[in-house]
């Protein structure tokens, strides 16, 4: 009895369960039984493993505690797939205490790490791999494995493996990024050619045809190779004049697909020659037509096109009645002559231009659109175009039925002197009587009025009205009304004189941004991304705004991939925006090397005099940087560059020196030029639209006149006003030391003697406006820049000065010269030192009038200023010592002009011819255009894989003799990277 009670309970429970199944009606779908119930829990399972990934939970619409709706589940699936992290999403539900437990089963996208092929490949491995990579990339999605296998199978069969099968055998690793895509290939035996025949072989020579097509009984059959051979053979026949040649292979497969019989049906046709009779045609035109006819199949359409082309050419030169009909003249069975008989006829000229019928539009206005002018050769096409242009001008002014008839008549007795006539029938004018916007509530009348160009009492012009309709629609779409429509119903008055312009708007719902979901950011703060996006919740959703947001986010330079997409919502008026980012690596390393060749001033150990010697300096750089510091797009960067330079002194005969050349501080070759830069960059400093850069720099460089070593710190704030204009302000403080001066001591300026080491503290400002299409290889646009520096002693500068430097460059592409680029530039430098009293090394007090320290003075000459002169060797007489070494100066003027031409259709190789002129003047007041010195030359440009290499050779116009009796070298040559300007 005791044992029966538990069994009774169990039986009752079982019966109750069965009863509950029987009583509840079966749901329409399995989801119905869960709808409306409270969500007790939301679980994630990624690749079979439980997960609490917050990023994923954030994009779900199903929230614990809320009632379950099918719409929320569907939206969650859409959101998850939009992350592009998952191949599949399944949502299951089960009843639990407290409601419904939802489980999201997610299958990660498996990024393919490697592609492998196994089995009997048939084709070379490289060919199979490149077929996959070329079409699907090196890391195709695993979901396309079947599609790729089908492609490979087709490829094998096209190459003669007619029984090939390819099956994917993906090896999905636990780590989604280490999946191998494996294809099991069974190529089978390649099909062999059974019989190969030719029908219609020229001269019955089937052997030759079969040989050219690679068809031999017993040989391996390759369908694609046969196709290529047919194309080559056909082109060969056409090149020999058989312009109507056709070759079509017919293929029959054996039942076991191991043998293929090929029958080639060909018709060679006659050998075709093209001839021109009648009036002469230019040689290049004849050759062009012949070449065109050889390129394609010779049929009636092609010949008629050429006939029209010849006639159009002649008519464009005044031969109004020109004709060039073609005829076919067979010469036996094997030859065909196609003859174009060119008849130019007389050449007509425009003797006068008449306009009649214009009453409401003055002739002066109509003349502006005319292209036909008295004295020109008569071209009917131009006259027709003028008629259309006049008609269009009338239509724009509201004459919607205006018509213009063009005609010609001879003037006097000479039939080739024509009077052109445009007879205008104006018709009535229609004006817009009123403009209304109907069913508008979301936008104000003012906004819509400003969007359109049609005006009350303005002319009725259908094209403008259509443009206005689009403009009104655009106003709605940019404000989130994606489903808005705008129509313009008829509104013409009975007499056609007035048109009531009505824009009937169906606004539709306005889509607003609901939530902005940001995923993928690991180091970058969400606030940084939010600020760059510029989107706000509860603001209108427009695709223009989303595209702008994506562009701004990409411009941060922090991300490898950026996607800003609206997500579907069941309610059409609110949409979430999903921002998916993939951060770029935080660390970056760069390195490189190069070679610079230029003339440089070096001391001759024998004579003690400076001489220009060609110097080849290998250089290299290394850079390491880290960005996105503290999640706010800050970055630090360390840049190191060095060049190996030969000694400043050379011994021409390797004899012991007996000169009294000045002792050089470091006469050895080695790393004598270097630069070390440490930079910290903070965009949008303190949330202002200003980027701040703090830089510490150590520089040592060799100039022609001196070497210098500089240590400097500067802080710069820059602001981009527009895409082409930016401004910056800077404060710098540092110390510069000069050494190895090559200037004659008698010519050395007092400021350099007193301040061989000088501390400078300066404020600078600059503005740059660039509309160049490319910063390194501009072909069009302009660059204008100004840089000004103020270094008063009051803020710590040992020498006070003010300096300004202006640059302007312009680039124009010359289409008439096959894309050549004409580049021009002008530079002006003006500097004023503040007078001060100083005590020199001899204890004397000297007055520094307007002198600047050597490191701040202007120098010119070299590969980027005035070519023909060695680096820094250009100067007015007052700036040169007796050996021709320049002291630099306070005034600088440079002009450049260069023509850059692509060579031999090769865009990577180009040439240039140039003229540079300029000079450096001791004082601003000494500037004189009559004292400019010039260099002319030519060069080669090569767009190498490492950058644009440039070799220039330039000659001085009027080389001079220095005070010491030595003559300037007449030319200079340069090897460097980058354009001169």
């Amino acid at each position, binding site marked *: 009895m005791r044992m029966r009670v538990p069994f009774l309970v169990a039986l009752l429970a079982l019966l109750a369960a069965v009863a509950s199944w029987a009583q509840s009606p079966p749901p329409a779908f*399995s989801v*119905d039984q869960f709808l409306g119930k409270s969500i007790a829990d939301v679980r994630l399972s990624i690749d079979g493993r439980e997960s609490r990934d917050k990023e994923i939970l954030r994009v779900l619409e199903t929230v614990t505690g809320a009632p379950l709706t099918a719409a929320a*589940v569907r939206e969650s699936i859409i959101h998850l797939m939009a992350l592009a992290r998952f191949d599949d999403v399944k*949502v299951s539900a089960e009843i639990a205490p407290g409601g419904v437990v939802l489980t999201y089963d997610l299958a990660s996208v498996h990024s393919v790490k490697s592609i492998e092929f196994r089995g009997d490949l048939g084709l070379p491995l490289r060919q199979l791999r490149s077929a996959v990579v070329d079409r699907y990339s090196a890391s195709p999605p695993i979901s396309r494995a079947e599609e790729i296998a089908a492609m490979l199978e087709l490829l094998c069969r096209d190459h003669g493996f007619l029984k090939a099968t390819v099956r994917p055998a993906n090896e999905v690793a636990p780590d989604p990024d280490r999946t191998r895509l494996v294809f099991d290939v069974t190529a089978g035996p390649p099909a062999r050619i059974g019989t190969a025949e030719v029908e219609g072989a020229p001269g019955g020579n089937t052997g030759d045809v079969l040989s050219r097509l690679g068809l031999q009984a017993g040989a391996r059959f390759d369908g694609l190779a046969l196709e290529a051979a047919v194309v080559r053979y056909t082109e060969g026949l056409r090149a020999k004049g058989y312009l109507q040649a056709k070759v079509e292979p017919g293929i029959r497969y054996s039942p076991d697909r191991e043998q293929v019989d090929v029958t080639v049906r060909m018709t060679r046709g006659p050998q075709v020659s093209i001839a021109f009779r009648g009036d002469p045609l230019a040689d290049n035109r004849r050759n062009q037509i012949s070449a065109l006819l050889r390129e394609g199949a010779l049929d009636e359409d092609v010949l008629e096109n050429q006939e029209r082309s010849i006639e159009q050419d002649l008519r464009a030169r005044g031969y109004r009645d020109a004709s060039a009909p073609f005829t076919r003249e067979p010469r036996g069975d094997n030859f065909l002559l196609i003859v174009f008989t060119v008849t130019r006829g007389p050449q007509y000229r425009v003797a006068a231009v008449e306009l009649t019928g214009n009453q409401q539009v003055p002739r002066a206005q109509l003349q502006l659109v005319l292209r036909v002018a008295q004295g020109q050769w008569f071209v009917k096409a131009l006259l027709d175009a003028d008629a259309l242009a006049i008609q269009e001008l009338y239509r724009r002014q509201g004459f919607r039925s205006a018509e213009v008839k063009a005609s010609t008549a001879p003037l006097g007795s000479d039939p080739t002197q024509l009077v052109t006539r445009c007879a205008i029938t104006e018709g009535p004018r229609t004006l817009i009587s009123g403009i209304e916007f109907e069913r508008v509530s979301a936008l104000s009348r003012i906004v819509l009025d400003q969007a359109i160009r049609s005006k009350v009492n303005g002319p009725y012009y259908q094209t403008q009205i259509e443009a206005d309709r689009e403009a009104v629609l655009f106003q709605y779409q940019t404000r989130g009304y994606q489903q808005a429509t705008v129509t313009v119903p008829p509104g013409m008055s009975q007499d056609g004189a007035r048109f009531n312009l009505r824009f009937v708007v169906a606004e539709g719902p306005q889509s607003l941004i609901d939530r902005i979901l940001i995923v993928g950011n690991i180091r970058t703060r969400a606030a940084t991304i939010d600020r760059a996006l510029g989107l706000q919740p509860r603001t209108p959703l427009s695709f223009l705004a989303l595209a702008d947001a994506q562009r701004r986010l990409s411009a941060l330079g922090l991300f490898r991939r950026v996607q800003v997409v609206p997500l579907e919502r*069941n309610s059409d008026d609110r949409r979430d925006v999903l921002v998916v980012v993939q951060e770029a690596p935080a660390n970056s390393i760069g390195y490189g090397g190069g070679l610079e060749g230029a003339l440089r001033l070096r001391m001759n150990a024998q004579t003690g005099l400076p001489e220009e010697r060609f110097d080849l300096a290998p250089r290299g750089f290394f850079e390491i940087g880290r960005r996105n510091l503290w999640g706010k797009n800050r970055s630090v960067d360390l840049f190191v560059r060095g060049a190996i330079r030969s000694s400043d002194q050379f011994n021409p005969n390797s004899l012991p020196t007996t000169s009294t050349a000045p002792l050089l501080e470091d006469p050895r070759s080695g790393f004598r030029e270097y630069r070390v830069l440490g930079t910290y960059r903070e965009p949008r400093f303190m949330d202002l639209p200003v980027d701040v850069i703090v830089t510490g720099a150590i520089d040592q460089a060799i100039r022609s006149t001196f070497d210098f070593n500089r240590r400097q710190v500067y802080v710069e704030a820059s602001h981009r006003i527009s895409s082409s204009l930016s401004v910056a302000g800077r404060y710098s403080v540092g110390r510069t030391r000069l050494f190895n001066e090559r200037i004659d001591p008698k010519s050395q300026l007092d400021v350099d003697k007193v301040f061989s080491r000088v501390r400078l503290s300066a404020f600078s400002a600059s503005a740059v406006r660039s509309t160049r299409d490319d910063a390194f290889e501009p072909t069009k646009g302009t660059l204008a820049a100004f840089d000004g520096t103020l270094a008063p002693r009051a803020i710590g500068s040992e020498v006070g000065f003010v300096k300004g430097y202006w640059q302007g460059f312009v680039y124009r592409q010359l289409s008439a010269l096959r894309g050549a680029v004409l580049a021009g530039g002008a530079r002006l430098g003006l500097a004023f030192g503040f007078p001060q009293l100083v005590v020199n090394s001899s204890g004397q007090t000297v007055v520094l009038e307007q002198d600047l320290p050597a490191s701040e003075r202007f120098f010119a000459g070299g590969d980027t200023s005035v070519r023909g002169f060695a680096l820094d060797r250009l100067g007015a007489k007052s700036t040169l010592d007796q050996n021709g070494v320049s002291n630099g100066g306070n005034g600088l003027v440079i002009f450049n002009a260069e023509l850059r031409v692509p060579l031999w259709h090769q865009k990577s190789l180009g040439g240039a011819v140039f003229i540079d002129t300029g000079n450096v003047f001791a004082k601003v007041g000494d500037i004189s255009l009559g004292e400019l010195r010039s260099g002319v030359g030519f060069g080669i440009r090569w767009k190498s894989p490492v950058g644009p290499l440039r070799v220039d050779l330039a000659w001085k116009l009027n080389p001079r003799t220095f005070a010491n009796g030595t003559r300037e070298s007449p030319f200079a040559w340069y090897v460097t990277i980058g354009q001169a300007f």
Partner: protein
Amino acid sequence: MRKTSPVLLAVVAVGLGHLAGAEVIDRVLAVVGSQVVTLSDVRAAQTFALVPAATPAKTTNDVLAYLVNRQLMLSEVDRYSAPAPASALLDRRMAQIRSTFPGAAQYEQALAGTAMTEGRLRNVIADNVRIETYVDQRFGAAAQPTSEEVQRYYLEHPAVFTRDGRLAPFDDVQVQAQERLAAERRRALITDWLDRLRRRASVTTLLTPGR
């Protein structure tokens, strides 16, 4: 004989009442480009009769194939910015759909059960109309046969035009022959077009065949 715990039996019995526990309520069935087709989309297409009558759509696979093709066509229609259909036409179609339900409650329940809203359903219908208009404009004229082709079709398909054991005269069935040939051509053109769209797009189907 082993004694089975009655408590265990009771628990199993109660558990049997909840055998329907973990059920897949929605999932991804296909991805066409960047657009997802879900199980709820298939249900919606079946519930609201959104699949054209001419399309064979009995199983989930059939409806899915239709929805994949629809998405391919819609992407193409969107590229050409086909205009939205007139509101009156959409109103009529929506009214037709509503009329297939016994009452408003059933209609609302169907919407809720298929992750649909009135607005989204209207959009789906509007897109269907745009697709139909586009296809008509693109393939309508191209599919029209010449009189010679109609005649040839008539001669090559006698079984179709046989009535009561006799081949009907051409004049009597000319219109029918023309319509049939035009429809066949249109189907062939559309199939060819869809093949090209499919080759260009990325289409992934996750549904196991046979369901």
